[in-house]
């Protein structure tokens, strides 16, 4: 049911959205999509982001998040695409697409998956500057959003 991909390439919302609708066929009543974008970097020195992952373990960490979502809500289809490598301002970073019979399940699961990706998914991020680069950490806001779902660990 879940399609999880970690890739350097960009993704097409049209393709994923269309395939999700097809897989849900007539059972799906609600489709929620989230995309995270790289914002313009306030600091002129910054050129972009670099995302590193651990092939295999990263995918497993996302699968675990999606399995947890599937236990909590009634879902028909889940797609998570996460890009890695070098990303520039305005690039798409991540897509979370959730299909369900009802909108309550689709909204909650999509937000849950995205919040957990922020703290549980095995990625490391680096800000790439013109002169220097810096590895960054999750924000305390990310952790408090995770806690709001009463997730242990």
């Amino acid at each position: 049911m879940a399609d999880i991909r970690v890739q350097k390439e960009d993704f097409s919302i049209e393709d994923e959205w269309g395939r999700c609708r097809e897989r849900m066929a007539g059972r799906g009543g609600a489709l929620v999509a989230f995309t995270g974008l790289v914002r313009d970097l306030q600091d002129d020195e910054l050129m972009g982001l670099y995302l590193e992952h651990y092939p295999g373990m990263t995918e497993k960490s996302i699968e675990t998040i999606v399995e947890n979502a599937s236990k909590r809500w009634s879902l028909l289809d889940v797609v998570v695409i996460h890009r890695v490598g070098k990303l520039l301002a305005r690039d798409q970073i991540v897509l979370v697409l959730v299909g369900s019979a009802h909108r309550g399940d689709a909204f909650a699961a999509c937000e849950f998956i995205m919040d957990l990706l922020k703290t549980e998914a095995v990625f490391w991020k680096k800000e790439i500057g013109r002169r220097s680069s810096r590895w960054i950490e999750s924000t305390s806001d990310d952790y408090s959003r995770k806690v709001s779902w009463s997730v242990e660990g």
Partner: protein
Amino acid sequence: MKVKVVFFASLREDMGIEEIFLQLPEGCTTDSLLEVLSARLGEKAVSLLCGDSVRIAVNQEMLDGRAHLFENDEVAYFPRITGG
């Protein structure tokens, strides 16, 4: 037995190494692995691996504490993950 050790993100950069294959005696643990790494990579590199924020995974499962290692195990050292 043969074990693969991999390093990620800031650790990979700070240690200047991405992966290393080691021959270890049977019965080796993640603790004794550090001694072998110290001999191979130097004490400074290994001090980085002992930092508070360093996580260890064995065969892509997060490790809490220490573990016995076996033939073809993959041990990963990495800093705290920053999420998606």
